[in-house]
């Protein structure tokens, strides 16, 4: 009797140890389908990452896909030994797309844990206004953070001493568009600008880029509430432009093509990066997308082979976001992915995960870390003590391709 009891207890102990071993190698953040052959079990405490973004609300698609990129990167890292043998665990706070919410959530999370005491890395916001509002919060609590969009604030390091921006100079994609128009031999190009903060900040970049290429720009604006841009396009036509650069996010992209058709115009239209992140073939019939182009990140080019980063990201996107991600451009998930990868590279290089150590590591990324083939939105990333925006993003990271449907996060020209 005693012997059988001992045998049962031994079996139970073995089973318990096996169960504990498998649960410690899974993360609470990732439900991806990546191969788990290298789920290295570790007894080290996991690295805590905080994500703040809108996974609900009117603009949830951007927040969800950015978060999906973050989760995919965490899953990839955890499947390959983690960061310095430590798993990455993400805590996500949903702002619902309301800036005030993101700020109060950030304060609640960081006030008791300043100086990176709990979270080694904060992915600070997805939407422009949200990102901007979180910048002083990260500064106040001396928190290492990476954000997507800063409206140029982090170009002054005093605003963002501990925060870095995934994106580079907004003029970089503009140069790619200007080069495209130049390659077509165009001498005068119209800029159709939606009257919102984002595109108003974009226009100076495209105007400068066009002028640098010897092209005369002509700028016309339309209100964000417009349901028709035919008068504006008519004005550009009357001005003799030979092509149009359309800063028109969402429905206005469709209005632009409809207006071009109604004017009997066949000039090339290039949509800006923001407009190009959506599937424009869903807004206009096939007849209207002819001679229409997208100013996109290289990763969006369906005609080019998938990069190592794209392959890894696509393989690790959590299943609940796979379908949604496939129908949108790679830069949305790619920015989340890149943020985590940049943090991972800095963390591997840094002597510790304190804020100052991570900041120092980001400013001194090794050549291999700067050119990590797993990056998606730009081939190389680097930062300087005077500018915390990605200084290594170049116009070559962008391209202009014909409009086509989106699948697998890429545009496939018609």
């Amino acid at each position, binding site marked *: 009797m005693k012997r059988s009891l001992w045998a049962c207890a031994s079996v139970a102990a073995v089973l318990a140890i096996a169960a504990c071993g498998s649960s410690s190698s899974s993360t609470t953040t990732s439900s991806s389908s990546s191969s788990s052959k290298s789920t290295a079990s570790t007894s080290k405490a996991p690295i805590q990452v905080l994500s703040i973004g809108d996974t609900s609300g*009117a*603009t*949830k*698609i951007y927040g969800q896909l950015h978060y999906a990129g973050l989760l995919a990167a965490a899953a990839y890292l955890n499947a390959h030994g983690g960061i310095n043998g430590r798993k990455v665990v993400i805590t996500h706070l949903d702002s619902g797309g309301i800036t005030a919410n993101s700020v109060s959530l950030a304060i609640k999370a960081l006030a008791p844990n300043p100086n990176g005491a709990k979270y080694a890395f904060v992915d600070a916001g997805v939407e422009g206004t949200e990102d901007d509002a979180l910048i002083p919060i990260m500064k106040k609590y001396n928190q290492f953070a990476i954000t997507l969009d800063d409206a140029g604030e982090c170009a002054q390091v005093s605003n963002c001493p501990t925060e870095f921006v995934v994106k580079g100079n907004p003029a970089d994609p503009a140069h790619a568009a200007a080069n495209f128009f130049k390659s077509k031999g165009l001498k005068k190009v119209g800029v159709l*600008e939606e*009257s919102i903060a984002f595109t108003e900040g974009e226009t100076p970049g495209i105007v400068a880029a066009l002028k640098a290429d010897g092209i005369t720009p002509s700028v016309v*604006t*339309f*209100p964000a*509430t*417009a*349901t*028709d841009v*035919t*008068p*504006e396009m*008519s*004005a550009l036509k009357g001005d003799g432009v030979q092509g149009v650069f359309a800063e028109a996010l*969402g*429905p206005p992209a*469709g209005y632009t093509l*409809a207006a071009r*058709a*109604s*004017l*009997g115009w066949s000039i090339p239209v290039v949509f800006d990066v923001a407009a190009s992140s*959506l599937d424009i073939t*869903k*807004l*206009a019939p096939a007849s209207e997308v002819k001679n229409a182009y997208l100013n996109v990140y290289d990763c969006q080019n369906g005609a080019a082979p998938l990069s190592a980063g794209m392959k890894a990201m696509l393989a690790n996107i959590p299943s609940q976001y796979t379908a949604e991600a496939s129908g949108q451009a790679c830069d949305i998930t790619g920015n989340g992915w890149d943020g985590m990868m940049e943090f991972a590279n800095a963390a591997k290089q840094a002597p510790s995960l304190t804020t100052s150590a991570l900041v120092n590591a980001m400013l001194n990324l090794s050549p291999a870390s700067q050119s990590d083939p797993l990056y998606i939105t730009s081939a190389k990333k680097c930062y300087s003590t005077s500018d915390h925006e990605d200084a290594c993003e170049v116009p070559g990271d962008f391209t202009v391709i014909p409009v086509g449907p989106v699948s697998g996060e890429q545009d496939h020209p018609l």
Partner: protein
Amino acid sequence: MAVTIWSGLVLGAVYALVATGFTLTVLPTGIFNFAQGALVVAGSFMAYQWLTVSGLGEIPTLLIDTALGAFGGLACEILAVRPLRFGLRRLTGSRELVTTVGMSTMLIGIIGVKWGYLALQVPFDGPSKFVHFLGIAAEPIEIIVVASAIVISVALHMWFRHTRTGQACLAVAEDRDAAMLRGVNVNFMSLGAFAAAGALGGLIGTLTGPITYAVPTLGTTLALGGFVAIALGGEGSFLGGLFGGLLVGLASAFATRYINANYSDLAVLALLLGTLALRPRGLGGTTEARHV
């Protein structure tokens, strides 16, 4: 110039149709249903659902959307108005303004849950070739929208003036208690008005969807545009709402084209203030005399 005028007329026609929906509820009940814009947006999303997803034709879609819009209007009346008007504690004041705004928010939220927040293209299962006239290339659906605004406004104006039920609605608008004493069923009037306005919203959404796309955030823009159209044209006047809507569209288009996009709303506001300063009851409003 011609392009700008036509663009303004099309936009104005949309606002005029929304204003007509507002007037339909204001006349018999005195209630301004701020959810009217959301009902139009719901109509456009339902049009996308039937035309694109279910593959129905244009006429069945119009009929279904009109019927569903009527149900939507009834829901607005029952959920947002009736409890205040006819509940155990009859409340006075303009609380319906608040509850109908809440109804609008709820409708947009339901739309977001069902179809998401990205714009959806609403096809038009009719003629697609541009119609050229007076230097304009107009899409057939644009012509239909402008014509609909005129026809519906005029038809409703005539109906309210020259039919027994229409006269009863005007009587309720003038003096609710007196109308009740004369045997007018004000409860039925209220339900009928909201159902009719909702039906019109569903119809408008189906017609305007191919122009504006199905966009959740458009509801607020349409409601505000319709509100300004009514204020300009005179509360309770269908013809006033039509002219007001067209004026709003033209002012917006001209300001955008010849001044700056940022002056679009300012121009409309200036037009509104100027009109009300000269004619406080609006273009189509009338001064009422009362024997004392």
